[in-house]
């Protein structure tokens, strides 16, 4: 029930700069996700919000209160640590009850709420176990329960579901979202699971090497990445180096070096990101947008190729098509049973739909 405002935050460890000049405004009750490669500064940022690190430069505000150096226990945030940080000398119940005991809640009320949350994370039978006797995923759920049970103003979740199986993860996601909406808890979420990020978040910030690349809603981030880093990092994509080659009425032409030919792209802001003259350009096309077909297909941007590999991933099937010795593209189709898979080595036609291509600049370093 707070906004979180980070302005011009920099954090250095000795000579290492973990976070650089970060500006973020997270709205009240928002579910906000940090995405980014390993070591890009997500945990560090979270810890500055929680109060375990003080920024080297910059200000942290909750609502309008400056919190930069307020000690952690006065911030009423609930955090799930990347390494869980469970209290080894306590049982599961005691771990979860800790925050309530601190808040001087009555015995019965504590018991009720702890049992309640343990049921939600499917650990009600484990209440009396020592935490060292739990499996990895069970420990992670204890950490989650411990942060949820205090119904904090701000919830900080550092990869809270990374050790859970898909089904349980679904349930936990639903539970977190339910609580979050119910109590309007401002939530900052760190995850490496893109589906998780895309389905749960109100907004997402994409980090790279301590810098924020883009902030936006999931569809914005996915469909309208501002640069090739975001395009490539979120979801699968085929990235091809291109250069401008002409302007049509409703479309633009780009020359694709690796294909040795031109590609037509709709001239909308959805298909062409903002860029300047000096930028190197990339063409990004998602595998699921690519049509791969054994028969010649009608339309623009059709190129022949040869199936190199067919990869089964459950719901989807990836088809790797070799266009020439310099270029392979991936297409994705839904899994409609083994009979529909293309054969490796088959000659195919690949279409890059002009309305689903996006031209982005190369990210600065």
């Amino acid at each position, binding site marked *: 029930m707070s906004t979180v405002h980070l302005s011009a935050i920099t954090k250095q460890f000795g000579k290492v700069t973990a976070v650089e000049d970060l500006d973020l405004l997270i709205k009240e009750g928002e579910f906000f996700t940090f995405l980014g490669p390993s070591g890009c500064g997500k945990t560090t940022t979270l810890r500055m919000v*929680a109060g375990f690190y003080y920024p080297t430069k910059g200000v942290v505000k909750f609502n309008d209160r400056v919190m930069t150096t307020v000690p952690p*226990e006065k911030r009423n945030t609930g955090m799930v640590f990347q*390494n*869980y940080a469970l*209290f080894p000398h306590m049982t599961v119940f005691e771990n979860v009850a800790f*925050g309530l005991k601190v808040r001087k809640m009555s015995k019965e009320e504590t018991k009720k709420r702890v049992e309640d949350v343990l049921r939600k994370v499917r650990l009600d039978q484990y209440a009396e176990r020592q935490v060292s006797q739990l499996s990895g995923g069970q*420990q992670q759920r204890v950490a989650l329960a411990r942060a949820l049970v205090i119904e904090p103003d701000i919830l900080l979740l550092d990869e809270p579901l990374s050790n859970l199986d898909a089904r349980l993860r679904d349930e936990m996601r639903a539970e977190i979202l339910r609580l979050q909406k119910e109590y309007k808890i401002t939530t900052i979420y760190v995850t490496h699971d893109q589906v998780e990020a895309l389905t749960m978040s109100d907004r997402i910030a994409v980090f790279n090497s301590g810098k924020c690349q883009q902030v936006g809603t999931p569809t914005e981030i996915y469909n309208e990445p501002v640069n090739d880093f975001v395009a490539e990092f979120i979801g699968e994509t085929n990235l091809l180096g291109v250069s401008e080659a002409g302007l049509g009425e409703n479309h633009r032409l780009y020359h694709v070096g690796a294909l040795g030919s031109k590609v037509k792209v709709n001239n909308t802001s959805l298909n062409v990101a903002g860029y300047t003259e000096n930028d190197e350009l990339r063409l990004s096309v998602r595998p699921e947008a690519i049509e791969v077909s054994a028969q010649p297909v009608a339309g623009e941007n059709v190129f022949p190729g040869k199936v190199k590999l067919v990869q089964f991933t459950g719901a989807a099937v990836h088809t790797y098509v070799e266009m020439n010795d310099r270029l392979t593209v991936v297409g994705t189709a839904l899994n409609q049973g083994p009979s529909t898979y293309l054969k490796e080595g088959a000659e195919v036609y690949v279409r890059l739909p002009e309305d689903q291509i996006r031209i982005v600049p190369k990210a600065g370093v």
Partner: protein
Amino acid sequence: MMLNAEKRRTLVLLIPVVLILTGYVLYPTLRTAYESFLHNGVPSFQNYEDFFGSKAKANLQALWNSVWISLLSVLFSALIGVPLAYIFNRYEFPGRRFFSNIAIMPIVLPSLVGVMAFMFLYGEAGLIPNAIKDLLNLSEVPFKIGGISGILIVHAYTMYPYFYMTTASALSNLDLSLEEAASNLGANRFKVFWQVTFPLLTPGFVAASLLVFMVSMASFSAPFLLAGGFRVLSLQIYFSKINGDLEMAATQSVILSIVSIAFLLFMRWYQGRKDYRMASKGIGAHRSEVNNPMLKWTMVTLGVFAVIILLLPHATLLILSLVPEGTWTWQTYPAVFNLENYKMLFDTPYIWEPVRNSLIMAVIACFGVFVFGIFTSYALVKRNFIGKNLLDILVMIPWALPATVIGMNLILAFNSPNPFSFGQILVGTFWILPLAYFIRFLPLVVRSTNAVLEQLDDSIEEAAQNLGAKWFYTFRKVVIPIIMPGVLSGTLLAFVQAVGEFPTSVLLYTIGNRPISIEIMNQLRMFNIGQAAAYGMIQVALIAVVMFISSRFLGVKAEKSLG
């Protein structure tokens, strides 16, 4: 301004620590240092000139002897204490708990009678060498202890518990999956131990090495009783004092402290080079399993064997206490046993008074070191502030100085009213002894607590704070329970030592607070070795009971965290 809250907290923590250390450690120590710069009452460097000049031969030799004896004592204590701790804590086998309790019994042995028991046991006229001689029909005793070997053996025997206890508590905090990772990478048991376990126990070793090094630098009874002519610094101090040269004694004390402190700094540096916080993800305290029956029985045999050796001096003490006066003089073996010594002892009307005194004073002092030690150690390990090294030195000084010097310091500092004694003259009152014990044994608790705190991952504390716990609450409910094994082992050591403390007691006791050790000493002085031994047995029994109770009731809680 940036680190306000953090700094304020550190400050709040530091103020009492610094105050107490200044009042009861620094101030008395400075008094002594000041004394060393007086010559016949006039300020000068004469004493130091003497030390390195006219008296250099003896002094430097004593210094050198002290240093290498101490280093060897550290080595030997480690050689005994570490494997024992490892075996008794790592492997589950019948009688493990019993053995692990026995393992700290050496520390129960009252120092003076203890060393004498050693001589009765292993000396040239001792029971064991003569028994072997008679059994094998040798013409000479096969071995005997005495001189340097004697000092080292006695040191190793009485000091290895420092290693044993700190190692044991550090082991209990060790993440076992680290060892598993090592053996998974192909390291055999030996390598796992040397390359992973051993380095990770560094905080524990550092603590123990410091304690042993300093205590043997200052050790008195062993060199004195076993090698009367052998020159070590602690004896030099004693003799200077006996010869009435208090200023020289002070000078020698200062030198001794400097060496000890140098060692402290060295160890700190050594430890500081690496990181020992086990910050791995989740909690990996799975206990390794041993099913090999061969190994199991080897362990049991080893255990039994070790226990016998460890308890022989106690047994000797028991024998001595059962031999009536005058029946074991020139005879190789005692022939008559009865309870006469005990009867004579219990006939004295005030027999329980010293026992009660010792207990009360030890309890008071231990309560003090327990509480104060935890806070001090926490400040030292988990807080950053300027002058941390200095504080650490201050904490260790009482341990680095020979006990007699501490006693002298206290006399000098508190035989006139000053603010730290609340305007009272403390010398000659009941409180001076508990205070002395408190000061002397504080380093024990601080060291052993440091060792476990070093291993504690910070994020545990952070988690508690994040859940809204104030610092103190976190400290009480999270930090303390986790470090309890370390704190308890330190406090237990302190208690045991306080009950038997002699060198400062003898300087400071009064009619109203005469402790056991003084009583033993008095019996010895009257050549009543039997009654002294009987008194010693009472002390042993007393401490054993306390240890048993604490391991029963406090140990249970501490062990819970081991999973």
